[in-house]
């Protein structure tokens, strides 16, 4: 048995107190690091500064699913830190290692759309699939496909998996858009495959393919 749900939210704790709290949460072995739900409603004094520290504490956290709080004067500065924790877009590896645990919670007031989307994405039970979707959406798509060159470096044996993953993302995106009844752009997976094929014509050139099959000495 362990403490999984902690409700705080005091009139006496200032942002300085909460910064201490989240710094302690980050410590290895801290019981706070094993919480599943943390609620800090009331006048909890969660400012940008607190949110940045909290976001930092949650980078490697795989336990906390619900974090409810009321912010005070929150700006993009604080929310950017949360977004970075949920999806560090600097590389594929960093996205993969981002927080895929924290889920959307309607009680977080005025959550920016970008953060809401990431929190919603985290609600998927298959965290591997969540990471894959984030990688496709935020690494390959957001840069207008300019990051596709990363795929060119991969082993040929990986290509069927890549195409399969992109195709599956297309289905997931369409289904998600249908459920939400939104008219968002959904033909993203196929679009990526199209860009990939254009970027790697040798892969589909019969002569180039034959050369590849015969091995490097034939080239």
């Amino acid at each position, binding site marked *: 048995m362990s403490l999984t749900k902690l*409700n705080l939210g005091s009139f*006496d704790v200032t942002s300085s107190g909460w910064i201490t709290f989240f710094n302690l949460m980050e410590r290895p072995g801290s019981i*706070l690091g094993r919480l599943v739900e943390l609620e800090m409603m009331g006048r909890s004094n969660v400012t940008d500064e607190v949110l940045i520290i909290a976001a930092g504490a949650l980078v490697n956290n795989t336990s906390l699913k619900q974090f409810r709080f009321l912010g005070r004067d929150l700006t993009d500065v604080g929310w950017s830190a949360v977004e970075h924790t949920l999806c560090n877009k600097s590389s594929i590896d960093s996205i993969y290692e981002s927080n895929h645990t924290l889920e959307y919670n309607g009680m977080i007031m005025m959550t920016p759309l970008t953060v809401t989307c990431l929190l919603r994405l985290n609600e998927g039970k298959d965290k591997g699939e969540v990471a894959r979707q984030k990688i496709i959406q935020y690494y390959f798509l957001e840069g207008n496909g300019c990051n596709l060159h990363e795929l060119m470096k991969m082993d040929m044996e990986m290509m069927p998996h890549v195409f399969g993953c992109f195709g599956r993302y297309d289905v997931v995106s369409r289904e998600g858009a249908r459920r939400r009844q939104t008219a968002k752009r959904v033909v993203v997976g196929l679009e990526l495959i199209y860009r990939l094929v254009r970027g790697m014509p040798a892969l589909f050139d019969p002569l180039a393919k034959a050369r590849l099959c015969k091995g490097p000495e034939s080239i």
Partner: protein
Amino acid sequence: MSSITGGSDEESRHNCSDVNSNSDTNNDDDNSESSVDSEDLYGGEPYEFDEEAFDLLKRNHKYAGWVQFSGWSQEQVDFLCSISWRKDGNVISSTTKLKNLNIEGCEDILENMDEKKRKQFALSAKCFYRSIAENRSIKILGIDRSLLDSVDTFSILSPFIEQNQNLDFLSLGRLVLDSKSVTLLTSALTKCNLRSISLERCDNMTAEFMTQIVNAVGVCGIQNLYLDKYDMDDDVGIALGKSLYKHNTLKTLSLTGEIDHHSQIFIGSITPVGMDAIAVSLASGSLEKLYLGNTYIGREGAAALARGLADNSTLKTLVLHDSNVELEGGISLAAALEGNATLEELDLSNAMFRVQGDTILSADGWIYFFDSLRNCALRHLDLRGSPIGDENIQTMVDSLNTRCPLQS
């Protein structure tokens, strides 16, 4: 569509009107009803008791699963008077789809009626209740401010309580109790099949009536007892505690109060003596959930409760939010939980607030508080509104981490 509640749900209304337009669909497939989630009986919105609801009841339609009569609405009062209950009363008595019926009276329901209309209303209300009494599908019956006096109410509804094997939850609020009505009620309870009963804020709840009611609850093996919004003096509290002592089936006891946020007055209190009697019963009983939120028990009541908790090995949930236990009471409770292996949820939100003269609990106080929870089985700790203070955050977390290993 799994919702049976309909109400303001436009989709339900739309579907109902589709069904209503087709007379062949009167006999609903029972299989479709089996997909109805029982939680829908509590959630969603009920149909108001009007022509549309009555039509659904006539058709024995599954969307008439939850119907509510509100005495606050003049239209509904007029509707109740306009029905020929002698002729059409069998609509309620014979329907098999009605699962949840709420009747909400109104204090001044008769004030604006002339004598003739009052007589007509009383007659209609009696016939209305008789129709309910013959029904055998209702699982949840809620009556708040009965349309009839308590003797008439129980005289008519006793057979229903005794014989409706489907009745699961009976909720009665703001009745005026007297010896005859309590005798009728307890007699019915001893023969019923209920799992839960709520008697909220009834006038004239004496120690004698409390004893009779709680004993009857014990006889029929009711698991969940809600006695919310009472100001219990010593005698009533002792009567409740003594009667609870004999129970071995009760799982949930709610003694929740209510606070008027404008006047800051509690409706719901238990004296320390009463709390002591209730706490003593904890040692012998089977209680798993105890709700005392918004009930004024004070630090003395918390201390009494703590004494009872020390010997308890069944309680899993203890809710004391807004209960004025103050800092001292919170520490007493924490001390009583030292080594407790069953309590999983403790809600002390807004209960340990500062009173005049108190200061923020010192670091030593918090160390003691969390140390006391050593080796307990807590999974959910609610301390919202507690006077922690910046200077005690480090202490709190250190206590949780090292001094008070709440996890095994």
